[in-house]
């Protein structure tokens, strides 16, 4: 703010008029800073008010016992200590990891296969790409409802089809052992097109000459894939992994709508737990502590990935 008064004060103007060039430049720098401030304000205000402030707020609340209505009671780090030993929270982290372990290989292998296939001169390629991408623009709630219907144990079309080939279909979302697989299946269906498009864009940015050179050297299809294409695709692969892990830890909508965390808590995931702690049990402190814990876990994993990328990611 001092910059404002200085640039507009009469003395500054007089000095600038007779001053050597670098004062002029400094003055122009200040004007630019003011312009930058003006151009950044519309985006910075919401980011500060509705992202950074709440982020700090979560930290503050996490150090208290609070039911969102009454007085806050300072408890220090007790909420964190409770969470680390709470079986329900551990289970929620376990289910989230289960989700990632099932979901990541499905979307990644499927997405890579599709990207490779659609990167060839296949007829109807853009239509096919469009169809595979369609679920990406659909809301998670619709995905969950439609899949609940498809996977309905007694009258759903999936079990009906399985019965045709003599398989007695499982109870899907009504069975504790099958609730997570049901969610994984629906999520993979939704996100497959997303992974495909990112990998396809990566494939198309690989210089043709490199692949040609390998072909001239007598490398077969598989060899070219493993030794040339996949290494050059690694920046896109890296991006997919980072984004999928960040999103995967935050899985919520589809779980809420498909199983509500059940049956018997068999699909309770971390964010669902945050939601029920805060809005069902009135434990805002525990919920905020779990929020921070989740954020720290996601941040740590992302940083490890960024650090580790040097070992396997090749930037052409």
């Amino acid at each position, binding site marked *: 703010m001092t910059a404002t008064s200085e640039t507009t004060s009469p003395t500054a103007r007089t000095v600038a008029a007779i001053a050597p060039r670098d004062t002029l430049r400094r003055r122009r720098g200040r004007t630019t800073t003011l312009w930058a401030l003006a151009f950044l304000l519309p985006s910075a205000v919401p980011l500060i008010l509705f992202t950074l402030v709440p982020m700090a707020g979560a930290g503050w609340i996490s150090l208290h016992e609070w039911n969102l209505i009454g007085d806050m009671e300072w408890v220090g780090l007790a909420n964190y200590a409770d969470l680390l030993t709470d079986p329900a929270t551990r289970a929620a982290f376990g289910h989230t990891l289960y989700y990632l372990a099932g979901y990541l290989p499905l979307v990644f292998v499927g997405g890579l296969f599709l990207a490779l296939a659609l990167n060839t001169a296949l007829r109807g390629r853009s239509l096919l790409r469009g169809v595979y991408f369609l679920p990406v623009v659909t809301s998670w709630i619709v995905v969950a409802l439609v899949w609940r219907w498809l996977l309905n144990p007694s009258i759903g079309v999936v079990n009906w089809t399985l019965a045709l080939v003599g398989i007695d279909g499982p109870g899907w979302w009504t069975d504790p052992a099958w609730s997570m697989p049901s969610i994984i299946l629906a999520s993979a269906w939704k996100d497959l097109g997303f992974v495909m498009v990112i990998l396809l864009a990566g494939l198309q940015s690989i210089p043709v000459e490199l692949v040609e050179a390998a072909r001239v050297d007598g490398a077969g299809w598989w060899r070219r894939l493993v030794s040339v294409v996949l290494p050059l695709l690694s*920046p896109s692969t890296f991006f997919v992994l980072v984004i999928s892990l960040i999103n995967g830890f935050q899985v919520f909508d589809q779980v809420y709508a498909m199983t509500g965390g059940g049956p018997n808590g068999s699909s309770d995931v971390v964010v669902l737990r945050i939601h029920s702690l805060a809005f069902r049990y009135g434990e*805002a402190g525990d919920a905020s502590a779990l929020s921070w814990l989740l954020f720290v876990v996601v941040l740590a994993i992302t940083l490890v990935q960024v650090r580790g990328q040097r070992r396997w990611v090749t930037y052409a």
Partner: protein
Amino acid sequence: MPETLAPRRRPRAGRVLLHVVVVLGALVMFFPFLWALITSVSPGSGLSTTPSLVPQNPSLGAYVELFGRLPFLRVTLNSLGLALGATVAQLFTASTAAYAFSRLEFRGRGVLFAVYLATMMIPLQVLIVPLFVEMKMLGLIDTYLGALLPTLSSAFGVFLLRQAVNQVPRELDEAATIDGAGHLRIFSRIVLPNIRPALATLAVFAFMSSWNSFLWPLIILRSTELQTLPVALQSLQGQYTTQWDVVMAGSVVSILPMLAIYVFAQQYVIQGVATSGIK
């Protein structure tokens, strides 16, 4: 199109097989949409035990029931209003920020941009409790404004548009500066017209993420007539446990606007996803 793995010498049978697999996969991917549509026009779907691809006694009864029993039209308009609000706001906030990050040299620019990017990593899910408390202090629980405020600015949008502004030739700015144009004029007359495709991409994304968002509207909007489509759909499921035709009719209604946008703006959507993946 570069054929990275061009199967020039691959046997024809392999190519045919590949084609068949990819087409079959597409049919499987499309089937859930088709099935939702079929169910929605088949009354009594929740009772029949033998599914049929051809609707028995097709009727639009489920849609009539949907709009009759719930304030479904109102709910759809709520979603539409919030999505349009978020879209317009994000186009404004992201384009101005992109201009600052690309064209204005100020101290701490790199650090500030990193802070913007870092906020992309903070999931809304982590913020729901304090955000709810904040809205409560502002008296915005159960208001459209409370639902809209957290969607005004998106770091992803800033990132996307900055890439686009960087590609607008600086000579254009310089020429305009010589003609006496200031930053506002350069921004509105030179930069904005030159990044139209990126603006379209952001518009589609902003609309989509608001239209599809669930957690925040679920928490902040309490009264039925203020609810958004995904939240209403979710509660529909509880009310009509066996009436799958009504639930699927609701799903179809919710998919349609996104489908329409997608058909017209497919290139922008796919390009947007693709650009975000390229370093």
